[in-house]
């Protein structure tokens, strides 16, 4: 049931995310890089909407665009990051390229290996809804759910230890 316009929207998002993702790593101003990351993450959220995973899309907007970017910008403000041209470029581009390429290759291989040839038809039944997520979290994944709160607790206590004066 993939319509032509769905493909058009997909490729438009693909172009938008591709350009902004490139700008994230090539931009000479780290604050601009963080703002380009907002565009990339919003594109990912739009892709989730396109896949009928509405809840995941809004979680992406709330947590990644809302919270993680705020954390990144605060991190930049704390570190007195140099914003001049090429101030934080270094000669490790080859290593970075190899690492990024390997990561992309492995991820692609895993996804192809797991879903090769499968056709996932989108319908309102297969769309990931908040209800189906709630169903599994509060029945089969209770322990991981509670462990998340421990993780958040550890993050907060760590930040308090770093930030307090005494």
């Amino acid at each position, binding site marked *: *049931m993939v319509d032509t316009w769905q493909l058009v929207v997909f490729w438009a998002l693909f172009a938008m995310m591709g350009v902004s993702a490139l700008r994230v790593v090539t931009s000479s101003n780290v604050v601009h890089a963080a703002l380009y990351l907002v565009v990339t993450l919003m594109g990912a959220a739009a892709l989730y*909407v396109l896949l*009928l995973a*509405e*809840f995941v899309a809004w*979680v992406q907007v*709330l*947590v990644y665009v*809302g*919270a*993680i970017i*705020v*954390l990144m910008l*605060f*991190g930049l*403000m*704390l*570190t*007195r990051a140099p*914003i001049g041209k090429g101030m934080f470029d270094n000669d490790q581009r080859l290593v970075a390229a190899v690492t990024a390429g390997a990561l992309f290759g492995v991820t692609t291989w895993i996804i192809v290996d797991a879903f090769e040839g499968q056709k996932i038809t*989108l*319908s*309102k039944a297969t*769309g990931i*809804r*908040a*209800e189906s*997520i*709630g*169903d599994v*979290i*509060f*029945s089969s994944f*209770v322990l991981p*759910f*509670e462990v*998340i*709160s*421990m993780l*958040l*607790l550890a*993050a*907060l*206590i760590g*930040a*308090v230890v*770093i*930030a*307090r*004066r005494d």
Partner: protein
Amino acid sequence: MPEGGTYFGQYVTIGIFALVGVVLVLGTLQLAKLVAPNVPDTDKYTTYESGIDPIGSGWAQSNVRYYIFALLFVVFDVEAVFLFPWAIVFERFGTQAFVEMVIFIGILAIALLYAAKKKVLEWQ
């Protein structure tokens, strides 16, 4: 979830609103550029046209204590995300879901208590 047609239809509405928003901002800026007289002057590009000139860079290192508030926001943002699916299934799961969420929020409340006890929530 609404059916396919109306589901995407709602997002088309959002898209139209977003487009109108972008056009409104860019359009008015361009219109101002067209209509306004253009008399460039170096004084106009200073930070304060009639005031004390700023010294040094505007990029300063901020206090690490701001980071606490950013992290508090992230933690409770993540908590809020879990509240949505919880609220939907709450009626069916009943006491079980209630106890699970109380434990979850309770552990996070410990973090808030710890932060309050260490006085990082007060601004001195």
